[in-house]
């Protein structure tokens, strides 16, 4: 069974993430894990700890969760699991991903925009793991994930052939365009070329690779082109 992890702050774009996960499942049996993260509260006693951690959901959040459950239930092959995580460490996340058998992580724009430390820490940790990360775009349309454009940095250590093989393990898409950009140049400098390629080739997904010490600065690429971005860890090709 496949497993897709969606960290969420229970904003509306969580639905988009759920829909994307269902679409990615493509009829195969998939477990969608919706993960909420909260800081471990300071407490003098176990009772106080339990009181602080049991925060009730707002009406909007409950409605959202119901909607998510409904959409997952409507698909015949997917199941929804809701997990609440209190506190986070790198070892914990690593073990959690292993336990859940996570194949992909979907990050929605609202989650990446979160300023709270636990969420930024999660983004940082997940960037270091070897799982593919799908950064959703700002659009609400469901992308088909047929044709991809690969944004290649000049320090990328993986070639197009390896990347296509890696992507084909989980996705049914084809890399039809490659845009090579020198690291020292502003990626936005060649935006017109990329936009033209996106329009000409009907690109619906961007792909880029990340290194072991990846940072989250790649977010602006998605904001520029409005497309989802699939981030592949370079070392995953060598696993």
């Amino acid at each position, binding site marked *: 069974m496949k497993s897709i992890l969606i960290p969420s702050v229970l904003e509306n774009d969580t639905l988009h993430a759920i829909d994307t996960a269902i679409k990615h499942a493509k009829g195969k049996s998939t477990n969608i894990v919706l993960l909420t993260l909260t800081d471990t509260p300071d407490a003098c006693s176990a009772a106080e700890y339990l009181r602080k951690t049991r925060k009730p959901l707002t009406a909007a959040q409950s409605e959202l969760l119901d909607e998510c459950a409904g959409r997952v239930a409507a698909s015949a092959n997917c199941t929804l699991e809701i997990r609440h995580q209190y506190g986070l460490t790198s070892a914990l996340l690593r073990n959690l991903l292993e336990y859940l058998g996570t194949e992909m992580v979907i990050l929605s724009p609202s989650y990446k925009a979160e300023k709270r430390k636990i969420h930024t820490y999660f983004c940082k940790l997940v960037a270091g793991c070897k799982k593919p990360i799908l950064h959703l775009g700002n659009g609400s349309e469901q992308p088909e994930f047929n044709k991809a454009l690969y944004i290649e940095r000049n320090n990328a250590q993986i*070639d197009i052939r390896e990347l296509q*093989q890696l992507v084909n393990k989980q996705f049914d898409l*084809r890399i*039809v*365009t490659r*845009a*090579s950009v*020198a690291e020292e140049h502003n990626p936005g400098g060649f935006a017109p070329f990329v936009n033209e390629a996106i329009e000409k080739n009907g690109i619906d997904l961007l792909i880029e690779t990340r290194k072991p010490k990846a940072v989250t600065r790649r977010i602006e690429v998605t904001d520029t082109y409005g497309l989802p971005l699939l981030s592949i860890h370079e070392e995953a090709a060598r696993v």
Partner: protein
Amino acid sequence: MQIRKKITITYVALSVFSTLLLCIIVFFLFRQNNSYYFLKRLQDRAKIVASIHYQHDPVKAEYFREFKANGLEEMINEKDYVLRVNGTNSFEYNTDLHLSPDFYQAVMRNGSGWEQEGQQYYYAQIFNEGRNQYMVIVTARDRRGNTSSLYLTRIMIFSGLAFVILAYFLGRFLARRVIAPVARITKEANRISASNLHNRLPLAGTEDSDEMADLTRTFNDMLDRLETSFEIQANFINNASHELKTPIATIMAESEIALLKERTTEEYSASLESIGRQATRLSNLTESLLKLTQTGYDGQKQVQDVTRIDELLMDVKCDLDRLYPGNRISIILGMMPDDDSLLILPCNKPLLELAIGNIIANGVKYSDNNEVFVNLIVERSAIKIVISDIGIGIPPEDIPYLYEPFFRGKKASKYTGYGLGLPLAMKIIRMHSGELQVQSEPDKGTVVTITFSRANIKNANVRS
């Protein structure tokens, strides 16, 4: 300052420094050597003085005196003293001697010792005679040692000056030798201009792997890129006219045929679709050729199509089927690899289709529509496309001019063409870091091999 002057000055400075250091070391060692041998002489005299003092036989004592006076080389200001040692730290004192207490202590401790005051040396040694101990002190002036030192210093100064002048000329020679390859490259490079960009800097030897050879190779590679850009820009209009006329001809033919008589809606639709496809192709080609002219190959901002080479060849075949109906082009996909990803080639698809299409079309044209085989060979290290025809072939004398724009061989001039297809194809393939090789025999046929090596495909941002 010029590098040549810097090399000369640096060489002279280093030479002077090392020579100065050597001179200082030699000088000190020489003086040390002098002192050593002078003290040896004093030591011998001390032994004789002791012998004289111990000698009870007056004849023998006189003999030793005679020997000391006449047998040994004279020493200037020579004096000797015999001091009786009374105890561990006491001895007779001679008021003529003005030596430091430390000296006496060292002698009492070690059994011998020496001291120097200017050029006057004092050597002392303890001798035992039965139960008595005596300290024999011999002193003399070393004038010859000092003279020798001065003489050596004078030699070193004059030699040093001569050496500095020699070092200057040697430095200039060295600088000239070192800079000569650079000067040669500069001279050759000055000869290269926009009108003769095909010239290249000569490499000294194929096995040369020094820095100058690297510089020469890098310069030549840069000239390759410049030449490509210049020629593409210069030939843009030619290339555009040559390549655009084909889809325009197709559009015209399609519309003429459609207008010949009344046709069904489906037939008109099919014609319009065909015209639409050719118009799209026209647009893509114009755009690609324009980009080629504007940017050349800018490895830093390059958006390439990622295509499968087998699909590309099939697309080329479809285009050629429209242009040359009834053609006998065969695409042979021999041993296809199990790994599909080996077929992937990042490229500018319209341009590469154009290049391969031109080469295959040449095969069709110059073989009078005989069979043309297009073999695709995919290996782990490279992708090869071998286009072979059984046509008129290319005479050996025409081979060096194949890539010259507008060149047409004598045999080829009987066929329509402008001599632009192959030069453009070569530039496009070179732009993709590929290699183009042509082998031909007159009246037997031609084999064109296009090779894209894997290393060049991988390094997308490396030079074109």
